[in-house]
């Protein structure tokens, strides 16, 4: 059964002392897909990824990664997995080329020089190969890291917030690369805070307080939130936000650029609220609920953090 899944884990729990970071997460991820891993800071995304690739011991639960037991076959999983850490963790006092050569040697890749040459070529860093990797900008560091963790042609790619702090163009390029790798047959699990990135995934998993809140395709997740959203535009919209927020039936109010989104589950109640706070220069229209609206609502539903803190 697990042969079809790249990741197949049940009831993963991770405790650090008396603090529970992950409180029972199930993931069944088929091979070949690109999945997004979402959730607020501290929701357990990084911890879950680290348990999957054997970097952290599992406190409870079982699972397989690429058909290997995550508790006992970590060395085999490391051979077949590429894990890109949240913080750039290549050697900044080594050149770009030296870093790639080190990785290539560890994985015993054949034709070392040729492989590294090709990787540099694809990266577009051939002319900068002798610079220290620490001298690269944030975006380039991430691309170097991605190239380094995919050099051994892993079956599964685990990317932990690979685009945090990266400019929009570089983010776009990075995602083109992820889809390219996916077409080559890699399974990709990527954690992110960006909704536009989440929308590029086949499926998303949303964690909060160490628990899986929801999982599904983006439209399904939005539908399941059951939210209706109205968008208000115009000069005076800012003055309305605070007042509307407290109306019954309004679940949340958020700015999207200069516009205001008002979401709730009860259409009539929202209409009443909006009519009550009419302003001449503000026009309202119903829009498709965004993923972000859905998540804000989901987080609110998930309620207080139930994990025990020391």
């Amino acid at each position, binding site marked *: 059964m697990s042969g079809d899944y790249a990741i197949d884990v049940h009831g993963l729990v991770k405790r650090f002392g008396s603090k529970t970071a992950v409180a029972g997460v199930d993931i069944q991820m088929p091979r070949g897909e690109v999945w997004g891993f979402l959730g607020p800071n501290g929701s357990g995304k990084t911890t879950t990824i680290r348990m999957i690739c*054997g970097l952290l011991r599992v406190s409870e639960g079982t699972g397989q990664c690429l058909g290997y037991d995550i508790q006992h076959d970590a*060395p085999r999983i490391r051979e077949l997995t590429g894990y890109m850490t949240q913080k750039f963790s290549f050697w900044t006092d080594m050149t770009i080329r030296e870093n790639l050569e080190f990785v290539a040697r560890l994985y015993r890749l054949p034709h070392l020089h040729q492989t590294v040459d090709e990787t540099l070529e694809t990266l577009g860093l051939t002319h900068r190969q002798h610079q220290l990797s620490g001298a690269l900008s944030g975006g380039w560091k991430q691309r170097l890291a991605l190239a380094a963790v995919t050099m051994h042609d892993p079956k599964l790619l685990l990317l932990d917030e690979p685009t945090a702090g990266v400019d929009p163009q570089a983010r776009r390029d990075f995602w083109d690369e992820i889809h390219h790798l996916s077409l080559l047959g890699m399974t990709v699990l990527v954690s992110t805070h960006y909704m536009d990135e989440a929308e590029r995934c086949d499926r998303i998993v949303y964690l909060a307080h160490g628990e899986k809140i929801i999982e599904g395709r983006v439209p399904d997740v939005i539908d399941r939130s059951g939210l209706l959203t109205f968008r208000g535009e115009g000069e005076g919209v800012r003055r309305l936000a605070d007042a509307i927020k407290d109306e019954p039936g309004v679940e949340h109010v958020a700015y999207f650029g200069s516009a205001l989104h008002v979401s709730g589950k009860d259409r009539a109640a929202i209409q009443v609220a909006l009519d009550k706070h009419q302003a001449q220069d503000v026009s309202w229209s119903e829009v498709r609920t965004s993923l972000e609206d859905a998540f804000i609502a989901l987080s609110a539903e998930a309620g207080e953090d139930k994990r025990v803190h020391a």
Partner: protein
Amino acid sequence: MNGLLRSFGRIWAVFMKETVQIRRDRLTFAVMFGIPIIQLILFGYAINMNPKHLPAALLVEEQTPIVRTMVHSLRTSDYYDFVMQTDDPRKTGDLLARGEVAFVVSVPAGFTRKLVRGEHPQILIEADATDPSAASGAVAFAQTILTDALRHDLKGPLANLTGGPPPFDLVVHQMYNPEAKTSYNIVPGLLGVILTMTLVMMTAIAMTRESEQGTIENLLAMPVKPIEVMLGKILPYVAVGAGQTVLILLAAQVLFDVPFIGSMWILFLGVSVFVLANLALGFTFSTIARTQMQAMQLTFFFFLPSILLSGFMFPFRGMPEWAQTIGEVLPLTHFLRIVRGVMLKDTSLAQLQSPILALCLFTAVAVSVAMLRYRRTLD
């Protein structure tokens, strides 16, 4: 005035921040208060510049009341601990070479008869002068001790022997270092000290650097085994150790004229095992310390006893029993026996068996601890 007050306010802010951080780092706290007390007690009681109770062997070829008196006086003088008494010269043969005793005192056959006849017979003290300061006290006082002892026995018809010069001839052989040059002892010892300091320090930061810079996460995510990481990390320093050894041996020869009478191959073997022992220890430190700073502190607190309790600066046999026991745990203690033995005494491999085995054992234990302590996960 106002500016000055504001400045004091900022100094206070930095002071408070520093205090908070110092308190948070438990190891540094221990370093500042706990360890100095331990060292004070340890070194204060252990170090003895005028060593007594040095192990000695006694070769007596005749037993007469006069000889017994003389031997008794040496024994009660606190300087000599006779661990062996024999009348067979073959038994005392290589005791000095193996470093088991610091002196061999020989009273030849016919000594008493010649003494009574006023022929000034010889008493021979062979001293291991590879450590000149260890030998000097016992040798310096031997003449007085023996002369005083005889004064009581030489009575009646023999009283005429007491007045003038001593009735016997004390001959002292400063073995291996006839001119009692301190540099013969210090320079080979420095080889061990320098290797200890640099190699332990360099490998002690090996893993902590990866932890501090976050690269450990990457290393752990890749398929490399702990023992592979360890070997890969310490092997470059074997070359460093080899380079340092060559440099120091050249300096010993050219600058200090220290003799090298033993086998280069035995020394090579000794240095190799010693270098590995230090590198393994350094790597072990780097699996225990959480920051590079802590690693340096651990190195430092290993280095001090290494210098003070190994016999490098102060005579090993002059320390109390418990301090010698601590000394036996330190790799430098064993290496000093090897390097001084080979360079100054032409000690054979068989005679150096125990220090070499001790270094191997130390290495094995250090590697085992390192492998147990090595973090295979980020937990």
